[in-house]
């Protein structure tokens, strides 16, 4: 029985690799040179995380070939991310909301 197995070709790999390297240089450059502050929030952090997420997305979709993998693999990758976010959001909810005073209830 033929195993039909879709893999990206070499050209795609190299393009994705160059994109990743480009993003790395961009994130280093932006972290060191731009210091945009919006009140207490440091925009650098959001930019750095956004770039890291796009790099992660590229690696998952092309290098790990999730694009052509089964629907099950996609659901389980999504499940891992979903429960990770639960831990972040609910875990941080305690530390962030500790300083809310209760005057206004």
């Amino acid at each position: 029985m033929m195993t039909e197995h879709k893999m990206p070709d070499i050209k795609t790999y190299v393009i994705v690799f160059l994109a990743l390297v480009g993003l790395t240089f961009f994130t280093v450059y932006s972290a060191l040179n731009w210091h945009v502050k919006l009140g207490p929030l440091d925009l650098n952090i959001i930019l750095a995380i956004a770039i890291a997420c796009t790099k992660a997305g590229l690696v998952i979709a092309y290098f790990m070939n999730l694009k052509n993998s089964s629907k099950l693999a996609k659901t389980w990758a999504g499940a891992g991310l979903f429960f990770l976010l639960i831990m972040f959001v609910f875990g941080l909810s305690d530390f962030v909301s500790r300083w809310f005073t209760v005057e206004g209830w």
Partner: protein
Amino acid sequence: MSEAHVSDTHLPVAHQFEDEEQQFQSYSLGMWVFLAQELLFFGGLFTAFIVYRHMYFDAFVAAHHKLDWKLGGLNTLILLTSSLTMALGVRTAILNNYKATIGWLLATCALAFGFMGVKYVEYSSKIAHNLWPAGDFVFKQEGIDAGGAQIFYGLYFTMTGLHGLHVLVGILIMGWLVFRIYFKRKEVVDYIPIELTGLYWHFVDLVWIFLFPLLYLIG
């Protein structure tokens, strides 16, 4: 963009599987579930990092200035390249070209050793400046409380150490794969363990993609 690789060769099917397709899908799903578990494993450390960064804002910023972002950046490039060589190795494995596969795997191993080398340099310089977070931790800086800095370096060594351990395990697996392909070069290249190791290696690279900005760049 993607070409379909129809391999006319057949892999031996384990007794509990019906056909090759079910075998491959099972191994692929099993690996993705394992990686979801690894994601949660590192997720615990990232939660601790985010919480302490929220609590010790200045100490973390001051402590991370002592990290050398150039070495961190170099390590990122090394790992990205090793991801590329790994992906190409998996591709040639599926095409049943065992020589090229061994070549790419060795390239990935070499890059991984490079990564560990850079890490060794980094660690020894940190320990030399007695930034090792146990016992004689010294962090004298105007206006920065040493406790928060010590926690930063505690997290730094734990996260990058655990990541380094995963890189070492990756090197061992790839070494075993190279021997296995070489000794079984007569038969069809069994691409399944190589693809799974590829997935594992890309995950290790993924963790570093998040570690690098969080530890070295932010602030």
